[in-house]
C-alpha cells in the first residue's frame, strides 16, 4: 500500500520526506536563540512545578527529615495515611468536605450572578463619566489582599466594631459576628461579593460591548423596551462567556477560597468554616508530629485529583457548547 502511494507522489514531496530529519534539524538551528530564551522558563517549570509532583510520593511514604523524600521508607501499608485521615479525624475530614461543597454552592449561587448583573446594570448607564467613576471605585477592593480585607471585616463585625456600636446604641448587647457560626456564612458571602464583583465585571462588560448594535436596532424596531432588550439580545449574546465562567466555577468547586476563610475564621467557627484547604493547613503546619507532612500531602493529593477530574469534565462540556475548549489556545 505504501509503495503504491509513494509512486503517485510527485518528486518534490518525496525529496522533502527523505530530508525530513535534516529539515527539522535546520529549523531547530534557525530557532536556536528562541530555544535559549525558553530555557530559563522550562527550567523554572521543571524545578518548581514538576519536581514537586514527584513529591506527591510523600503521601505514601513515612517522611523523615534526615532522609528526604527519596530516602524515606514507604509506609506500610501504602494507604496508611489515607486511612488514618478518616480513622482518627474522620469527622473533621468529612465536615471539611461538607463545608467546602456548601460554601462553593453558596458562592456560585450568590457571588457568580453578581458580576453579570452588575455588568448589565453598568451597561445601562448612559453617562460615561458616571460609569467610569463607579468602575474606578468597584475595582479597588480587588487589589487589597484578604489579609487586610479580613482585618477590616473583623474590625467591622467584631466586638468593638461599627455594627456592635449600633447595637449598643439600640440597647442590645455587643456581639462579635465573626465568632458566631450562624452569621459566618452571610458575612463571608457579603464581603466576598464586595471584594470580587467589581473586578469580575470586566470580562462581562467586554462581552457586552462586543454585542453588535445592529441587533439592538433590529430588536428595538420590533418594539423591545429596555428589559426585553436585555433578556432577548444581551444575555443570549454573552451566553457562551457565562457558560464558560460557570463551568470553570464548577471545576473549582473544591477550592472554596482559602484566603477569605483563613483570614476571617477562628476556633469558634471551625465547625462551619473549615474547608479542606484550611484543615490541611492545620494538620500539616500546626500539628506536632512530622507525620503531619504526609497526612497533609495525602489530603492535597485527593483534592488535586478530584479537581483535575472536574476541570477535565468542565473543559469537555465547554468544548461541546462552544466548539473550542477553555484551554485551546495554541495557534
Amino acid at each position: 500500500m505504501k509503495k503504491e502511494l509513494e509512486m503517485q507522489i510527485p518528486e518534490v514531496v518525496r525529496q522533502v520526506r527523505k530530508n525530513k530529519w535534516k529539515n527539522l534539524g535546520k529549523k531547530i538551528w534557525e530557532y536556536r536563540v528562541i530555544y535559549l530564551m525558553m530555557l530559563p522558563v522550562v527550567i523554572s517549570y521543571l524545578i518548581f512545578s514538576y519536581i514537586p509532583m514527584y513529591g506527591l510520593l510523600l503521601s505514601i511514604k513515612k517522611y523523615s527529615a534526615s532522609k528526604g523524600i527519596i530516602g524515606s521508607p514507604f509506609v506500610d501499608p501504602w494507604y496508611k495515611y489515607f486511612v488514618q485521615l478518616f480513622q482518627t479525624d474522620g469527622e473533621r475530614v468529612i465536615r471539611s468536605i461538607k463545608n467546602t461543597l456548601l460554601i462553593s454552592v453558596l458562592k456560585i449561587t450568590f457571588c457568580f450572578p453578581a458580576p453579570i448583573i452588575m455588568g448589565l446594570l453598568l451597561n445601562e448607564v448612559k453617562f460615561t463619566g458616571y460609569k467610569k467613576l463607579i468602575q474606578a471605585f468597584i475595582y479597588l477592593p480587588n487589589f487589597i489582599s484578604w489579609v487586610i480585607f479580613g482585618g477590616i471585616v473583623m474590625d467591622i463585625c467584631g466586638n468593638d466594631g461599627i455594627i456592635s456600636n449600633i447595637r449598643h446604641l439600640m440597647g442590645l448587647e455587643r456581639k462579635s459576628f465573626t465568632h458566631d457560626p450562624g452569621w459566618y456564612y452571610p458575612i463571608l458571602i457579603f464581603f466576598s461579593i464586595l471584594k470580587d464583583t467589581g473586578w469580575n465585571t470586566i470580562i462581562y462588560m467586554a462581552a457586552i460591548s462586543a454585542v453588535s448594535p445592529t441587533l439592538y436596532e433590529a430588536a428595538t424596531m420590533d418594539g423591545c423596551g429596555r428589559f426585553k432588550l436585555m433578556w432577548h439580545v444581551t444575555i443570549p449574546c454573552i451566553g457562551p462567556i457565562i457558560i464558560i465562567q460557570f463551568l470553570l466555577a464548577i471545576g473549582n468547586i473544591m477550592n472554596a477560597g482559602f484566603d477569605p476563610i483563613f483570614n476571617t475564621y477562628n476556633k469558634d467557627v471551625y465547625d462551619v468554616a473549615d474547608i479542606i484547604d484550611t484543615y490541611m493547613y492545620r494538620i500539616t503546619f500546626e500539628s506536632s508530629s512530622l507525620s503531619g507532612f504526609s497526612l497533609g500531602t495525602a489530603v492535597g493529593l485527593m483534592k488535586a485529583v478530584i479537581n483535575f477530574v472536574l476541570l477535565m469534565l468542565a473543559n469537555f462540556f465547554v468544548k461541546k457548547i462552544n466548539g473550542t475548549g477553555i484551554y485551546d489556545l495554541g495557534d
Partner: protein
Amino acid sequence: MDLYNDVLSDPKVKKKEKITVAPDGKVIPTDGTDKIKTDWFDILNFIFLAIFAICCLLPFVNIVFTSFSTEEDYFNKTIMIFPAHFTFDSYRYIFLSDVDAGGIVSALLNSIIVAVVGVLYNMLMTSLGAYAMTKRDLPFKNVFFTLILITMFFGGGVIPLFLTIKDLKLNNSLFGIIIPFGINTFNLIVLRNFYSNVPDEVIESAKLDGAGELRILFRLVIPLSLAGIATIALFYFVERWNEWYWPMLLFSRNSSLWTLSYKMRMILQDLQAADYSTKIDVSNTYGDAQNAASIVIAIIPILCVYPFVQKYFVKGVMLGSVKS
C-alpha cells in the same frame, strides 16, 4: 446577521422614521428630539450603583479615619465618621518605635524589595516565554505548551513545593519567594496574545535589517505592547505585594525576612503574642488605631499605582480575555 435581515425584509414590521444611536452604540428610539430620556429605572440604577460603590469604599474610609484618631476616641466612639482629635500618634509609633528586626519598617522594606525585584524577574521570564510561544512554526512548540498547561490543571501541592524550596536552601533569603514563583501561566498566555498582535511584517523587516531575536523582543515587540505589559506588570505587582502565605511557610522563624503582608497578618490576628521565634518582643502588640495605621501603610502603594495604570489595565484585560 440573519436576525437583522429577517427583520428588515419582513413587510409587516413598522419601521420608525428616525433612530438615534447614542455614542456607545446603544440605540435610543426617538421621535425626532435629541434629549436622552431617563426613566425610573435609570434613577434606581444610579442609586443602586452608588450604594454599591460606597459599600466598597466605606471600609477603607473607616480605616483611614481610625488610623488618624487616638486610642480613647476609638473606644468611646459610637460611630466613627470623622476623628474627634486628629493625630499622627499611631504613625509615629509605628515608624519610630517598631524598627527592630521583626518590625513593620523592616517588613515594609522587604516587601518593597520583593515587589520590585520580583516584578522585574517575573516580567523577564514571562516575556521570554510568551515571545517564544508566539513563533508559530517552532518545532516541538506543542510539547512545551502542553507541559506548561498541565501545571495549570495539576500540581504537586503546597507541601512538596515547600520541601523542594527547603532542599534548595532558598528559605534563607528573600530569593525564596522571588525565584520559585517566576511565572504565572495565565499571565504567560495573556502576554502571548498581546505579543502575537505585533504584525509579522514588522518583525520580518526587523530581521531583514539584521536584528537578532533578543533585540526584536526588547526593542520592538515590548514597546509595541505596552498596554499588555502594564497590565501584566500590575497583576504581578499586586500578587507580590499581597503575598503572605509563602512568606509565612518559609520565613516564620526568620523575622528579618518578614514581608509586609505577613507582618500585617500577625498584627491583625494578634499573633504576636503566640511567638514563633524567641526574637519577638511579646509586649509589642498593637492597639486598634495602630492596627488601622498599619493597614493604611500597607495599602498606600497599591493606591498610588492604581490610578496610573487604570486606563491601561481595563483595555488590557478586555483584550486579553476576549482574545483567549
